[in-house]
């Protein structure tokens, strides 16, 4: 048996153990996800070795209660918490083991994912967009999305344009940084429209972009504004035919009578040209404003959600869509909530979730019925009555919902926090992270200046160990689910040379402001980061400020 004494720091397997006799706390860090999927037990014992009572099996590794207990540090009182910041010293004994029928052993599994063990150091890589402070309305970035390989990064703006960046292929000489992202294609996806019947102008702002997985040489993405979804094909052309018989190279037609010999046209290389063409236009299916689109894991269908309805489409069929969720009440006066976001499960092609303005998430199974008005699961956390205010309904409205890559968890973002839900547990989230709790006392002002209606998005990293979301003053936050550490960084052009490590920022809520801290009252609420994206495989993040796109990478040694 391996044991850990309080004044030693040891690492089990690849789990990280930090702390020691002077730090007053011992932390064992490991990847819960891997642990859970391995079917092993976990045993913690503390006290003075060796006269301990026999180790107590906390619970089966597959038991939700155990997971929750660990993450909320609710271990059995006889066995103090793994992470304890009291000044007392704890000895934590851990036995490495593997699962047997007698359930006597346990194992701590390696820690996966960036951020675990060694923290990532984020460095500035690039910034795209205009430098001047005068922001043109049309340049405001409204969505950011990496494609499935991470090679392409698409942004949509309020002017209806889509700009796609492509990562340079890494070359041997630049081994210390990953490829840069350069403009690959720019096209106007949507134009402003006018609905004459309703006397309504339809904004051209791109609300969401979603990539399709690549099936051939071309790339496909779906982009949507308030009313219309378009499927765009982005293809490269690097050859062109030359040697036509009836046409000159400049396009003029030759007189057939002057043709004396025939030749076969051949393809000759040309400068790379990237063309974007709309292949499908899915229109006239939404009365209200579309807020989400999500491509199914079957890669044939996708859903689009507006305030009150969700429609299911087939990518090939544009003249028909199926309504699968309709929460419009018979009497609009009875309307109490709207749909704010929807997403398909990454692995189950029959499952999707949608979030509401009341802070609930409903999981629906399309196999249950044609119209999924009745949810299969309802995720809702009871409101904390002590936090009740005029604005409780606003700040509990969910602005974004994202499944983890594994499909086991989903993350929701409301105004002040990020919550991670286990799909198996409906009554409360398994993790809650406060993004900017210091704003809770400022809600009235934020209501006046409309900032309380800002819809922040959130994203997972590739291994589902870190989540990221934006805040004000061009700050964005990352929460490491394993180490429970969080960091606040700023996207700004100042002091940002390539490979400069970003300095963590801190907001001082009240009281004395320490050096380098920013007080809440000096935050710039015009500078907000609503859209962020994480490369699916690497530690590269794209963060959109109002009209600039920042790309950060981790420091590679």
């Amino acid at each position, binding site marked *: 048996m391996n044991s850990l004494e309080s004044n030693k720091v040891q690492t089990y397997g690849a789990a990280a153990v930090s702390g020691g006799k002077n730090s007053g706390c011992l932390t064992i860090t490991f990847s819960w996800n891997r642990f859970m999927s391995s079917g092993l037990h976990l045993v913690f014992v503390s006290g003075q070795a060796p006269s301990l009572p026999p180790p107590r099996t906390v619970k089966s590794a597959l038991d939700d209660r155990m997971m929750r207990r660990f993450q909320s540090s609710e271990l059995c009182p006889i066995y103090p918490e793994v992470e304890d910041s009291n000044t007392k010293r704890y000895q934590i004994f851990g036995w490495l083991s593997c699962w047997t029928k007698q359930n006597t052993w346990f194992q701590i599994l390696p820690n996966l994912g960036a951020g675990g063990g060694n923290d990532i150091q984020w460095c500035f890589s690039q910034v795209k967009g205009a430098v001047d402070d005068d922001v043109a309305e049309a340049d405001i970035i409204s969505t950011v999305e990496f494609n499935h390989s991470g090679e392409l990064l698409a942004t949509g703006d309020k002017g209806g344009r889509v700009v796609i960046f492509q990562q340079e292929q890494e070359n041997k000489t630049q081994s210390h940084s990953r490829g840069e992202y350069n403009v690959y294609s720019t096209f106007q996806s949507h134009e402003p429209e006018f*609905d004459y*019947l*309703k*006397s*309504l*102008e*339809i*904004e051209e*702002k791109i609300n969401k972009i979603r990539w399709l997985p690549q099936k051939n040489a071309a790339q496909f993405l779906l982009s949507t504004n*308030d009313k219309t979804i378009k499927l765009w094909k982005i293809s490269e052309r690097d050859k062109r035919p030359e040697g036509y018989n009836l046409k000159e190279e400049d396009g003029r037609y030759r007189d057939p009578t002057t043709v004396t010999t025939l030749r076969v046209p051949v393809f000759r290389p040309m400068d790379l040209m990237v063309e974007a063409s709309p292949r499908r236009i899915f229109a006239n299916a939404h*009365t*209200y*404003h579309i*807020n989400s689109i999500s491509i199914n894991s079957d890669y044939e269908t996708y859903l689009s959600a507006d*305030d*009150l309805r969700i429609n299911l489409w087939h990518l090939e069929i544009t003249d028909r869509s199926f309504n699968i969720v309709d929460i419009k009440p018979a*009497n*609009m*006066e*009875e*309307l*109490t*909530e*709207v749909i*704010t976001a929807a997403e398909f499960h990454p692995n189950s092609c029959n499952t999707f979730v949608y979030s509401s*303005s009341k802070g609930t998430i409903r999981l629906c199974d399309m196999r249950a019925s044609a119209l999924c008005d009745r949810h299969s699961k309802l995720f809702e956390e009871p409101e904390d009555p002590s936090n009740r*205010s*005029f*604005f*409780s*309904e*606003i700040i509990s*409205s969910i602005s974004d919902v994202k499944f983890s890559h594994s499909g086991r968890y989903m993350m929701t973002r409301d105004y002040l926090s990020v919550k991670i839900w286990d799909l198996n547990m409906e009554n409360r989230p398994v993790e809650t992270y406060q993004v900017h709790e210091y704003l809770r006392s*400022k809600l*009235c*002002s*934020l*209501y*006046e*200046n*409309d*900032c309380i*209606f800002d819809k922040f998005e959130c994203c997972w990293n590739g291994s589902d160990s870190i989540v990221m979301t934006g805040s004000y003053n061009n700050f964005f936050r990352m929460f490491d689910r394993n180490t429970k550490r969080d960091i606040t960084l700023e996207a700004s052009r100042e002091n940002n040379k390539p490979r400069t490590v970003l300095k963590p920022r801190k907001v001082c809520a009240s009281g004395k402001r320490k050096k380098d801290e920013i007080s*809440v*009252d*000096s935050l*710039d*609420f*015009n500078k907000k980061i609503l859209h962020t994206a994480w490369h699916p495989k690497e530690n590269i993040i794209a963060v959109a400020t109002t009209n600039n796109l920042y790309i950060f990478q981790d420091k590679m040694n």
Partner: protein
Amino acid sequence: MLRGRRRMECTLDAQSLISISLRKIHSSRTQRGGIKLHKNLLVSYVLRNARQLYLSERYAELYRRQQHYPDGAPLLAMPACPPPPAASAAAPPELAALPLPPDTQDREARSCSAVRGGAELLEVPVCAAPPELQRAPCRDSSPAFYRASSAGPGPGSPPGLLYAAGCDFGAPHCSSRTTVLDLDTHVVTTVENGYLHQDCCSQCPCCCQPAPGLASPPPAPGTKRKYYPGQEEEEGVEEGEPGGGGVAGGPPFAPCTKRARFEEYSAEHPQDSSNISNLISIFGSGFTGLVSRQQADSEQPLNGQLCSKQALASLGAWTRAIVAF
């Protein structure tokens, strides 16, 4: 947009919140892309919360009043005020009623409950009025006036008195009926304020079951409203278009309710939006303007000439009512 840098705190005054919310609803009409259902739903929640707070404050006031004036006295407080502000008096509920004229096809013609929620603030005390009005027929000529005056969110004495007068004592919230006199046709109509009870329930456990709903059918949109034809022509509807909102003064309103047809509204009544916008802006500035105007208007005589659009739109009527008390 952002003024926040210089001032991060703001007063959580129910009235200012209501006026801010109404301004938001109003400005959302003119925004590109049409009315955003989600945002307006959230704003309506704020309105409802602010209204509940306001109501509970008023009821607290009422209880205090009842201790001092167990009976009769309030009657004395009702001056022989001439009718005029009758039109304006109905303005608040009107205003409330109008923000979202409903679908012409739909006869329900409901208004934005949330906005009405704000107006309800004003209507609440009014429901106390009807029994009172019936008892004092000579006052019937200006029930709306009393409505307005009682609705005045001023320092509170008049409303309190009216409350005491009108209601069944002991129940600060009012009876479920509002009686309204149509000044043109002299038709007296009773409107069930079922919603009011639902709201009251949150404050006062003694309230009874909410009344079902409108005692009389809500007027169809586009038609003259029976209740306040005067207002429709005079106030708010600057183009003189009647029935712009087509909402009765007191259709029932579920507390948890919300949006009436934003999308239809915006589609079908483009010309209404200017009417509504006037009303809303007036209404929105109502509370904040009230106090400041009190002094300015106090010397104006109470007379019917005030039924001009602007005067009606202004809170002069309310301030005068308060002054009268």
